[in-house]
């Protein structure tokens, strides 16, 4: 075998200039092993059948779509259809990816998974899959997030996972990822790092997208079946961006369908307290991938902010950066206050309490619907349900002291 010089080494996992592998050498063999395992699994009928069986009998797929006319009255009269990932087992889209990666973990002969979580959705999904498949599980969570998502911490512990509260840095998702990466470097032999979104070094962004693309495949067929046409716009919230990539992917070739991602505008761009990466960030490297990163002039990461722990992240999946720069997708942001209005509105008009993350997409639907008017057809990914956010919402609306939403 001839040795490759560095100049000949392949640069896998690029979306234009974004993506790649900016990791310690110690992790490269594990990433190669994972890449090989997922590529083999993608064409292995046995693996696919097992995953399909779990989705049908455990996740609850296909998830339904729901038309929401009373909510749509606030969207310029446009027709609005929700893809109901909130109805999946564990309450969000996260389970799609987690079951896939947990099956791969077993295939690679590893016995332990680690994960990071912000809102707790991915942590709960990982703890669930670990319990189902008999894997040991440790979940890293920023200390701030363990406080705002205490219920999910309890759920993970009940499922048998160890939850580690990370106190470094901003004590949020970013720092939980650093801690998980440290654990992985140390224990890579028996441990798989079950990354929860379309970020991280190759092959994570591609692999996680592939486990979520079922969302868009189902939704496209369901919308065609219901309405006889494709939507004018597909709208999804974007933290790391996994639910958005999942629903966008099947529509990328449909040139007439606008793909719209909604980031967390927090307290507004001018306040500096937000996670609207595309409104303020520049390309850089964080957590193993080149993408848009909120950073200062030296390249130090700037802390993000959002009322939604799940969107509170200073970078974004590299494929989103590519879709944005190539013009195929557009990205907007919604501020905390508009998001909580939409959260309340969907609850009261349709009897569906969304995750605060997903309420960002609802703000997008209200804006885009008003722009496009009553002939428009909008498909919105309702990525998760709001049970986990009750404490945040109750505090926001002052319900703990007798107020109303």
């Amino acid at each position, binding site marked *: 075998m001839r040795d*490759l010089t560095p100049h000949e*080494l392949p640069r896998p996992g690029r979306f234009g200039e974004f993506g790649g592998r900016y990791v310690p050498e*110690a992790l*490269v063999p594990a990433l190669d092993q994972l890449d090989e395992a997922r590529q083999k699994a993608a064409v292995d009928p046995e693996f696919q059948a097992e995953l399909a069986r779990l989705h049908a009998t455990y996740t609850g797929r296909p998830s339904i779509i729901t038309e929401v006319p009373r909510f749509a009255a606030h969207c310029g009269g446009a027709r609005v259809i929700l893809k109901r990932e909130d109805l999946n087992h564990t309450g969000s889209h996260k389970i799609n990816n987690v079951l896939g990666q947990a099956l791969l973990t077993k295939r690679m002969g590893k016995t332990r998974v680690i994960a990071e979580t912000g809102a707790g959705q991915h942590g709960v999904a990982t703890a669930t899959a670990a319990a189902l498949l008999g894997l040991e599980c440790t979940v890293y969570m920023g200390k701030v997030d363990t406080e705002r998502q205490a219920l999910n911490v309890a759920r993970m512990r009940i499922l048998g996972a160890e939850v580690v509260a990370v106190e*470094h840095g901003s004590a949020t998702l970013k720092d939980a990822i650093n801690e998980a990466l*440290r654990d992985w*470097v140390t*224990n890579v032999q028996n441990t798989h790092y079950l990354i929860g979104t379309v970020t991280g070094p190759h092959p994570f962004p591609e692999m996680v997208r592939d486990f979520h693309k079922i969302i868009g495949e189902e939704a496209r067929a369901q919308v065609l079946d219901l309405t006889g046409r494709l939507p004018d716009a597909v709208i999804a919230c974007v933290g790391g961006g996994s639910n958005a990539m999942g629903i966008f992917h099947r529509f990328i070739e449909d040139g007439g369908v606008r793909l719209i991602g909604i980031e967390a505008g927090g307290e507004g761009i001018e306040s500096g307290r937000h996670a609207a990466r595309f409104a303020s960030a520049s390309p850089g490297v964080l957590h193993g991938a080149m993408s848009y*990163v909120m950073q200062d002039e030296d*390249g130090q990461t700037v802390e993000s902010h959002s009322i939604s722990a799940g969107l509170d992240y200073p970078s974004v999946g590299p494929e989103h950066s590519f879709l944005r720069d190539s013009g195929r997708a557009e990205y907007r942001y919604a501020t905390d206050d508009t998001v909580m209005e939409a959260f309340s509105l969907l609850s009261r008009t349709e009897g569906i309490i969304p995750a605060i993350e997903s309420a960002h997409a609802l703000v997008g639907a209200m804006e885009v619907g008003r722009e496009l008017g009553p002939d428009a057809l909008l498909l919105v990914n309702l990525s998760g349900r709001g049970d986990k956010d009750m404490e945040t919402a109750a505090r926001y609306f002052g319900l703990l002291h007798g107020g109303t939403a």
Partner: protein
Amino acid sequence: MSSTVVNGVGEILQRCREEGRAALVGYLPVGFPTVEGSLQAMRVLVEAGCDIVEVGVPYSDPLMDGPVIQHAASTALAGGARVDDVFRATQAVRDAGGSALVMTYWNLVLRRGVERFAADLAASGGSGLITPDLIPDEGGEWIAASDAHGLDRVFLVAPSSTPERLSAVTSACRGFVYAASTMGVTGARASVDSDARGLVERTRAVTDLPVCVGLGVSTGAQAAELAAYADGVIVGSALVRTLTGPGELADRLEALRALTNELADGVRGGRG
């Protein structure tokens, strides 16, 4: 990769080899406990027998570092340390008669501009870069810039590296190869993992470059143990810890001097 390296660390390691000993490579971050304090501490390393000073750039997300260095980095950043200060540190090490290699996470180089970072580093007497989160596969721009400016480039190998990876990574290195002796993050350990010797042997099988071993060394005895088979012994957390103690900076610098002396004796005793 035939360009001449000015002030390269390769010749220092060669000289140590001729003296029949391993080199001592000491890590300290810029800006800890203060920028001025860190420059003083780096001078102490040179005076006390460190052959190469590894100048760390504090970073907000140091994923390869354990708690001691992470704490130092966040203290440095909170105190206002900037990337510009790194070049003051390399100049200070150089002026003290030492050789400075900068250890940096990649985004800081990328943000400044790879070419500009390389030019500034060369101008301030720095020898090159150690890049813990940049593998040669992604390093094309840095490989070109380091060639253009005559800088060393030190990539890491790990116990998990396959023979193919060892070969590819070492062929991209210049100066030495950094062997991360244990799987894991930085931090002193009670015993240095036996993975280290195996990794050094596997690395030597694919390259003639010097191999320096890091991660986990904190005593002269451990340094001596590693010096028996490695070309250089890299010490970080243990040195940083001496600067975190209570009391006056002057006292802590004396503690740093004492530990560096002990480690320098260690690398000289390893092959005795």
